[in-house]
């Protein structure tokens, strides 16, 4: 009943059944009748590769590893994980790390890294760089009301115009879903090679369903799934120390999804209120609360990721 559009470029003003400007049918299909772009598409110039690609490729030759942090669901801890991963990598004095926030409408990376008021940032040691639309807004109150093509334009600029320098890791934090931002990042980085994606979930079925869709997305576009991280799994009451399940895994949690889809479960991180607090204050949770079971879980996951990437 519902045809799933294959990743392809569709302009903003295209008709709803646009075959995509790179398609063989571009400018020739029935849907193209009356489209303002019909002549351009029919002429064949759109079938060539994106003109930004060589610039992105050039810039990315200096970036050794590119890792995506994905989740179909929002609010499961993508940005928190991306930031922790960045801090963890950067704790090695020989490692340069960059975080690129492609959540254009809801950028959280500046707040989580504690650099929200800055316009351009390099950390004190100069080892962790970040780029986000959050640094470009006149005020954090401003809404970025953009449709896909404008978001894609900015993501292209992030990849080709930002002077990332020589990086060991580029961590890409994404918005929830499987839409413009995700397709753009994957298409732009395809030639340079994406080392893999880390998928973040919480234990509830509503989150798992969305993450299952994200796994499907990764397979469709050919991105390697490094593994699954289950956040907010269990909560230890600071009063009585009893563990309870705030977000109960009613359908078996991430473990079952991992088994069903053949994806590795990298680990489960318990809910610690200090994680959220650290994110709000822009400090590294791993450094602030080294005693927390969540820190141990994070570190194990990061260790496993390094193994999977062959960077041990």
């Amino acid at each position, binding site marked *: 009943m*519902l045809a799933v559009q294959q990743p392809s470029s569709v302009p903003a003003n295209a008709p709803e059944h646009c075959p995509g400007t790179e398609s063989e049918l571009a400018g020739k299909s029935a849907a193209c009748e009356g489209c303002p772009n019909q002549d351009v598409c029919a002429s064949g110039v759109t079938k060539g590769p994106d003109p930004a690609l060589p610039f992105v490729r050039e810039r990315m030759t200096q970036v050794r590893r590119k890792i995506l942090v994905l989740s179909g669901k929002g609010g499961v801890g993508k940005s928190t994980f991306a930031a922790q991963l960045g801090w963890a990598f950067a704790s090695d004095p020989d490692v340069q790390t960059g975080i690129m926030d492609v959540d254009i409408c809801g950028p959280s990376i500046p707040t989580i890294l504690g650099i929200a008021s800055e316009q351009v940032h390099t950390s004190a040691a100069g080892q962790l760089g970040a780029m986000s639309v959050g640094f470009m807004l006149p005020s954090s109150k401003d809404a970025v009301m953009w449709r896909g093509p404008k978001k894609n334009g900015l993501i292209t600029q992030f990849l080709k115009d930002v002077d990332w320098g020589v990086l060991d890791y580029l961590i890409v934090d994404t918005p929830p879903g499987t839409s413009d931002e995700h397709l753009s990042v994957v298409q732009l980085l395809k030639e340079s090679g994406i080392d893999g994606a880390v998928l973040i979930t919480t234990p509830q079925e509503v989150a798992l369903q969305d993450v299952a869709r994200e796994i499907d997305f990764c397979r469709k576009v050919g991105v390697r799934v490094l593994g699954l991280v289950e956040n907010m799994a269990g909560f230890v009451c600071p009063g009585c120390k009893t563990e309870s399940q705030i977000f109960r895994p009613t359908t078996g949690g991430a473990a079952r999804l991992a088994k069903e889809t053949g994806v590795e479960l990298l680990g489960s991180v318990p809910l610690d209120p200090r994680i959220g607090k650290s994110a709000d204050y822009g400090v590294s949770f791993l450094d602030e609360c080294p005693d927390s079971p969540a820190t141990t879980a994070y570190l194990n996951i990061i260790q496993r990721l390094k193994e999977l990437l062959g960077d041990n």
Partner: protein
Amino acid sequence: MRLFSQGHHDVSSRLVLSSFSAPMAVAVAQDTPVSRRLSHIKHIIIVCSGKGGVGKSSVATQLSLSLYTSLPNARVGILDTDLTGPSIPRMLGVDGHGVHQSSDGWVPVYADASDARLACMSVGFLLKKKSDSVVWRGPKKNAMIRQFLSDVRWGELDYLIIDTPPGTSDEHLSLLEHLNSVHDRLYAIIVTTPQAVALIDAMKCLSFTRAVNLPVIGIVENMSGYVCPCCGEVSNVFSTGGGEEMARKEGVPFLGILPVDTELVTLLDAADVTPRDGSEIMDSGSKGFGLVKRYQETTSAKLFKNVVDKLLRRLSAD
């Protein structure tokens, strides 16, 4: 390490935030397929938040359940416009149902079965398998939303609740564009959690509603505090009070605080377990009823009643 040395300030000065060329006109009497289709709907309430995972779908579901029981004959519709991550089918316990085509358009799925007072539409009903990803760019999403608004046979409704994805992008702009002809019946509710990261995005969402001239009924602060089931100690897992503070500062009504309620989380999450590949489509039959009954027993339902009371007062004042 040199970072972002080039052209950064140029970019920032060129950021034009809104793609609307003019503010939306209020109550333009247009005759469009959408306005004809929605002509028998009294109130349209858009549930939004800049941030994902703060409880938009949970609030939308609770709103529909509460309004459903507010009057013995209330007719409620719920439209899920989160196309790449639809959660409403799961929460209403109608996961795996299909949509039928009638001569008069798509028949929504009724969560209360034969009573047919709680209608639901979501892209989730159109997927062959639950784990199929919907990989769409803007234009496709726009077309789907237009179709949801113009082709679904809602019939007469007292309330149509529209659940949205996070952000302020294609889905939101399309919704407002297509609903322009019924703008005088539109309202918004903003959901946030008390964390700073969520409040920043909620603020963006409020700026969006102002830019498109959408009246905001109020702000709901969700996930504010968690009561330990063992000792009763309240932990502010995601902090507390931020939503109320934001409402006060911005001069927007505050609708209430909802704590993390595991009972509710489980109720909305734990529809009968079906295989994720969708091989077996369950018939939940009268589960809609069960859901309403079980919902009314939760602590959240009692707290949510205050939210709905404030909402109804506002709607009747207009």
